[in-house]
């Protein structure tokens, strides 16, 4: 039996310091290799995979693209995305409801980052858990489909607040579900003032050229920042 009295020690450690460290290493590797990395988060069924397939297919014509897709089970999404001709790998997370930086690092082991211009990380469909984990990405997209309801941003403010761009998907269904675009956009701005918003339909292709142009411009801005001497 120890006689030691409990004593208080001061600590200052991030709980996710391991994830943050791996994410920092990944971010440095991505920058060094010149690959621009985009992650996608949304609830299940909001059209992430269709949007990503369209994005990969379009970008594939002019750029070297690849994707990692996270799901609790099945390789269905990777099979779907492979139709775009881009290299795609599934990360089956098992019971884990989000991607972590170490999973991304492991999945990338056999890939040469220097051979890529864009890498997409499709997170597990979940509007809560992915918000806490940095994956080393340059840009985080949050997707909201017109069928989900305009108040989703108010119910899940954290995920909107930690993302950079909001993509409103399935715009071809907007009229059928009486989607109130102005209300949805106002709610996004309420939880993340100044957030960039884009509206797309992966089915008809509406809004896709604007999205692709915006993405290429963002990647270009980053690389010009890198080459300019500090």
């Amino acid at each position, binding site marked *: 039996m120890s006689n030691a009295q*409990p004593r208080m020690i001061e*600590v*200052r450690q991030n709980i996710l310091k391991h*994830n943050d460290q791996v994410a920092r290493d990944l971010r440095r590797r991505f920058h060094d290799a010149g690959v621009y990395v985009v992650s996608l988060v949304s609830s299940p069924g909001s059209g992430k995979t269709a949007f990503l397939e369209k994005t990969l297919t379009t970008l594939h014509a002019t750029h070297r693209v690849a994707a990692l897709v996270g799901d609790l089970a099945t390789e269905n999404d990777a099979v779907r995305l492979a139709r775009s001709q881009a290299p795609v790998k599934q990360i089956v997370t098992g019971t884990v409801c*989000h991607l972590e930086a170490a999973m991304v690092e492991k999945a990338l082991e056999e890939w040469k980052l220097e051979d890529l211009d864009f890498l997409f990380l499709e997170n597990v469909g979940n509007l*809560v858990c992915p918000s806490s984990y940095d994956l080393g990405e340059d840009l985080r997209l949050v997707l909201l489909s017109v069928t989900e309801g305009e108040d989703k941003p108010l119910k899940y403010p*954290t995920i909107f607040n930690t993302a950079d761009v909001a993509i409103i998907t399935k715009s071809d269904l907007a009229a059928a579900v009486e989607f109130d675009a102005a209300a949805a956009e106002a709610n996004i701005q*309420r939880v*993340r003032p100044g957030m960039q918003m884009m509206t797309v339909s992966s089915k008809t292709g509406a809004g896709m050229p604007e999205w692709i142009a915006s993405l290429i411009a963002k990647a270009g801005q980053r690389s010009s920042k890198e080459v300019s001497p500090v």
Partner: protein
Amino acid sequence: MHELSIALSIVDVAEEEMRKNGGTQVTAVHLKLGVLSGVVREALLSAYGLATEGTALAGSSLVIEDLPVIAHCAKCDAPRAINSIDWFICPECQSPISDVLQGREMQVVAMEIQ
């Protein structure tokens, strides 16, 4: 529900700090948790018991201090606490504010060890 993953990370961090300080058992862990951290306090408290079982933290208490969101208001040129995370608005001048200074933290700040 990623609170079990978070709780397991707390065990890793706490055991490492305990060893560094020459302890063999942790009796309490004190956290600072930002309201924008994406972690639900109640879910974390219930996951904690499970995550600490069979570790040096078994039976320890978890003390959580919630950190409100503080953002910089460009119009007032001052830090302001946000009343609710579903509306990023300055409580003084009502203008939208987005420059978050505090609220995403997930930190172990102190521990009781023996």
